[in-house]
């Protein structure tokens, strides 16, 4: 192999783009959040609830979560992992004015705005993307009430 004269050459470095997991794509995650809020009652859900659904979807454990929620296996624990990327995506959603901060059952919650409702409808209308996710989100969002959020997070139910 011919030797390359390195000493008398100019170097330039360029940062190579790194691969991004699909669930860290803004479009994917924002669409997912839209679907979650859009499927929730009154287009509103607490941040805790969103975190729970997000975690279940990402780790493909929505079936397990459903079993827990169905109440037949009362003692199955649910370990919630909080994901920083999700929080960033929520910031984008709020920044784009698709949702606003509000309160639900004493917890911080997100409420879809008019733009947000349209966006959620658009996401639900896409036929070939997020197929499984949308089904799971629609089911979970209905099942997880704000009271159940408390139970899942291990709060004592107030008498």
């Amino acid at each position: 192999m011919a030797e390359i004269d390195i000493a008398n050459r100019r170097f330039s470095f360029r940062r190579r783009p790194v691969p991004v997991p699909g669930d860290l794509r803004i479009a994917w995650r924002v669409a997912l959040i839209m679907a979650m809020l859009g499927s929730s009652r009154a287009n509103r859900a607490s941040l805790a609830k969103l975190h729970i659904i997000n975690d279940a979807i990402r780790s493909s454990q929505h079936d397990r979560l459903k079993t827990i929620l169905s109440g037949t296996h009362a003692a199955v624990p649910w370990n919630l992992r909080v994901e920083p990327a999700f929080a960033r995506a929520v910031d984008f959603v709020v920044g784009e004015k698709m949702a606003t901060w509000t309160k639900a059952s004493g917890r911080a919650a997100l409420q879809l705005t008019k733009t947000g409702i349209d966006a959620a409808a658009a996401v639900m209308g896409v036929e070939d993307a997020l197929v499984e996710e949308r089904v799971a989100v629609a089911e979970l969002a209905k099942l997880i009430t704000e009271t159940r959020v408390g139970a899942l997070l291990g709060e004592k139910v107030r008498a």
Partner: protein
Amino acid sequence: MIQLRHLRLRSFTATRAFGADIPFEVGLNVVQAPNTSGKSTCLQAIIYALGLERSLGPQLTVPLPYAMREQIHQFKEDPYDLVLQSYVELEIANAQGEIVVLHRDVVGDKSTKLIQTWNGPSLSSEIPRGKQRDYFVLDGGSATNESGFHAFLAQFLGWDLPIVARYDGTECPLYLEAIFPMLFVEQKRGWSAIQGPFPTFLRIQDVARRVMEFLLDLETAKNRRRRAELRAAISDLLGRWSDRRKSLEEAAARVGRIRGLAVQPSAEFAAAPTLDLQLYYQGEWIRLADVLQIASGRVAELEASQVESVEQAAPDVQARLTDIRSQFDVLSAVLEAVRGEHSAETQDNAALEERVAALETDLKRNQDAQKLQRLGSELGRAASEHVCPTCHQDVSNELLPTVDSVGMALDENIVFVKSQLELYRSALLNSRERLQEIAARYRGSERDLQDKQQQLRVLRQELMRPSASPSRAAIEEIVRLQAFIDRLESIDELANSLLDELREIASEWALATSNLRQHPVDELTVADKRKIEHLQTAIRRHLDIYGFRSFQPGEISLSLDNFRPLVLRDDNGETMEKEIYFEMSASDAIRLKWAYYLACMELMRDYSVNHPGLTIFDEPGQQEVESSSLFEFLRSASQSAQNGQQVLVSTSETYETVNSLLGDRANIVSFAGFILQPIETGSAN
């Protein structure tokens, strides 16, 4: 072919019977009557008698006016009488000259889903009714079931209805309801489109194209069907191949491994099927046939040798004992190693499986993200343009935690994941193969080990027997070898029978694949194009006669996609085909419809088509089209209707005009007032 011979309407009140009898002849038939007197009733009664009302729309109401359903009177000023019973009867004939009478109740005891038929011309010639048969319509299976009326009608017309695809991915026959709008122009909506309008509730894909292909009997439709059949056959063969291949692999795995059996059938395999069944035998992979040979050779050798006494054989037995014992130790060590290898490979395999699954999920999500980009700014600018909505900085690192890295662009990322996936998938495939081989080797070594163990036992016992008795070691070896050979042979036999089946599948597959290649892709054949050209010329000729003025008739051409008329326009020096609907005057749209329908029917004279040779126009004088044009249309309709073809037209032009125009060239059925008039109750059946 279908020919209408006689239509009978009956409507009974408590005191009187109303009715109309309309004889039809071959050629042009004109039903002439003033407005609101029942012309449409007559024509719609034909649809109703044929059970085809759903070609007008999905509703199940009877497409007939009050006079046949609820109340009736003789003159406009008379009070209404309640209809207690009413029915429609139609006599039709086909190309073979068979004649049947159809009877369907409108109001009465019998279900409106029932159509009764009698053989013979009992309406037109008052002869006694022939054999009766009942059919049903509107319920599921009416087009396919033996007692479904449309199945009967299709058979009566000599139609072999093509199977077509629906929007939901299923298939259905091309229902008669879909075809009929090309034969019957209904007054209210029928004139709104050049073709059809076709009913959409049947959910047939490309319905216009399918109907036209069928009516014009184009080869492309048959080719498409043939291709679909071939594709189904091929996928079935592939399924059977992989099924047989799996059972062969399983059988082989009991003793060894199989080499050179492709995942998919090939022509080469069909010509010369080869199969390499290998056995792990004494530390190496050997072909089954060779193992068999070695074993049988050994048996022959043992059989040929003299039976020695234990004393004579003792030194030999002693030596063999030592030899086998050391072999046994080696084999035990090997087996342990193979077991270790197997568990390592299993772990590798599991890791690879997990990795492939994770990559597949990731690919799916990235692809979803790509599809979601279609929503554009709907999901906000951060998602579509990668600009932060608050600080307007670049966010091309997506949601990655580290600030200083740049995320790959989506397309690039998808390619990247795909290439990784490819790599891991092939690694997984290799790993699976290795795992199988290790398992086979393990089984082979284990078998060897057992074999040796047995031999050791036999030899030890041999040494303890009385020295004068005959040595049994040789005999026992023969028995053991024979059992081994039997097992191998049974597997060989199974493999051979499966090989025959595989060869058959491969040759069928090769045949189907080459047939599929020979069938042209979804394109019109030369013969088809000739038909379409002929149709186009005929349409232009008709347009010329009818005084079509929106374009030069020569500018009208037919789309090769769904055979709708297009106009050839000069667009910046290029000739372009354009849709016509909005550029045409309303009356010219009517002229084009006349021309299109008559030309389609005329095609029968020169080509073999499925058109039944019947066209019905309900009030063709639409959109105040000039009388002169209408007369030209009637005149050419009377010419079109040759060779046993039939055109039915209803009109409210006066009898004098129609008669002076057509004279004896048409069967004019004229009514001065309401078409349904009181009749002698005696003549009603």
